[in-house]
């Protein structure tokens, strides 16, 4: 193993972490600005031009804040929980391809850290590790709100993970590979979202639930649970949870873009490989914008309905999509996949509508 290769990895890792960190800082800024605009306010505008230095100011403020550890907390786990939560958010970035190979100073450089042949399995495995951090944070705080928040969010995350896994299966079927690079290359002709639009929608919903974003932000249901699992955290440990949440938003947007929206693909990317990161960045930005928009638009859904939606609607729907996709591939009729999955999605939506009506009139 040559030293240059190790340096390449170190530099790429640092770049990836830099992307997640600055991305995290400016996603909070974007969220505050966008929400403010949608609520006819101005948002942060004091620190720097247009408030651009606001995230920096917030970060510096948090460094100098006092950190409290509750007297009866489990000190080791209380200390470890934020670290366990933030690491998956950073490590998930490893398999996202930002482009194919490019030349830099006469050297062939791949625009991804690692192209695993089991890339999708890696995504599923690492993203479920984050549940540990949340459960441990809630449990170790010795606080009722925190315990309940941790339990709720873990139950929600594992429930939606099933439908997420099944929509991964749809992508694997379409691309005939688990490597993310191969998946992106398979979309060169047509993005998978056009073949399997309902699959993309299911994946988007489950990813929203996975990062505990509105309208699935149960653990942060302020009216009932204060701040959920991180109620007792302050200072930089709180900052780590914040970082994990927003870092995961970015990663999840990257996953969605890679699996269904063509990843780094875009016009001219064959000739100029350096355009790849630009296109992926743009797609991530759009996904983040939509996520924040959803927070501004939709109210939080009730917990029983949240669980029912995951188990009774998304799971069967995703299962049906897998079989529809398999059928279409076997008959080599891709239009059939689109039509049948749209019908399946419409049926699911109608059933949700009926169930909601029945409940409302019964009470």
């Amino acid at each position, binding site marked *: 193993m040559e030293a240059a290769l190790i340096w390449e990895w170190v530099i790429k890792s640092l770049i990836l*972490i830099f992307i997640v960190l600055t991305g995290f800082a400016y996603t909070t800024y974007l969220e505050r600005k966008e929400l403010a605009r949608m609520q006819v306010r101005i948002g942060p505008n004091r620190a720097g031009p247009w408030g651009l230095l606001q995230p920096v100011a917030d970060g510096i403020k948090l460094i100098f804040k006092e950190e409290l550890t509750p007297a009866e907390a489990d000190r080791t786990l209380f200390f470890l929980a934020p*670290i366990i939560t933030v*690491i998956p958010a*950073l490590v998930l970035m490893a398999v996202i391809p930002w482009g194919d190979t490019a030349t830099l100073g006469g050297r062939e450089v791949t625009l991804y850290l690692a192209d695993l042949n089991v890339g999708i399995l890696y995504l599923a495995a690492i993203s479920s590790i984050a549940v540990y951090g949340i459960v441990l944070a809630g449990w170790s705080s*010795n606080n*009722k709100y925190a315990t309940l928040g941790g339990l709720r969010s873990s139950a929600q995350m594992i429930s939606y993970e*099933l439908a997420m896994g099944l929509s991964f299966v749809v992508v694997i079927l379409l691309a005939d590979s688990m490597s993310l690079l191969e998946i992106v290359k398979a979309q060169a002709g047509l993005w998978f979202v056009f073949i399997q639009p309902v699959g993309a929608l299911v994946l988007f919903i489950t990813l929203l639930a996975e990062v505990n974003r509105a309208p699935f932000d149960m653990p942060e249901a302020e009216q009932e649970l204060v701040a959920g699992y991180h109620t007792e955290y302050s200072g*930089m440990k709180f900052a780590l949870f914040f970082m994990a949440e927003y870092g995961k938003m970015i990663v999840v947007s990257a996953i969605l873009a890679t699996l269904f929206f063509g990843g780094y693909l875009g016009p001219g990317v064959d000739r100029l490989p350096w355009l790849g990161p630009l296109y992926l960045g743009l797609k991530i930005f759009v996904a983040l914008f939509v996520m924040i928009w959803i927070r501004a638009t939709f109210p939080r859904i009730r917990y029983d309905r949240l669980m029912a939606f995951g188990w009774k609607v998304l799971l069967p729907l995703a299962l049906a999509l897998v079989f529809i996709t398999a059928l279409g591939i076997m008959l080599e009729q891709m239009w059939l996949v689109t039509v049948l999955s749209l019908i399946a999605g419409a049926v699911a939506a109608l059933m949700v509508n009926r169930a909601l009506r029945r409940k409302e009139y019964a009470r």
Partner: protein
Amino acid sequence: MLEYIAIAVLFLIAVVLAALIVFLGEIFGPRHSTPRKAMPYESGMRPVGEGRRRMPVRFYLIAVLFILFDIEVIFFLPWAVTFRKLGLFGLVEMFIFILILLVGYVYAWKKGALEWE
């Protein structure tokens, strides 16, 4: 194999970074802990009873069901990769597998395991 070493490098850097951030706070933050500050936060009320009490059995049920169906999803992954080679046989085989699991799913649904009151 090389890819996994690359991921290990990223993992190590991520661990160092996370530890660094925690220690930044430990170094620069003031420390004036008082018994009142160290009390569990309950919106200003004096906490009654343990913070870690018994949890609703629903959560266990969800976790057990999750394990069942997650294994099913994991079985799907190798099947999906080799699907084009398996052809009709693979489709029928998987359909039977899912039918067996669906029996359990319908049973859990009818028994009210998926209800949340």
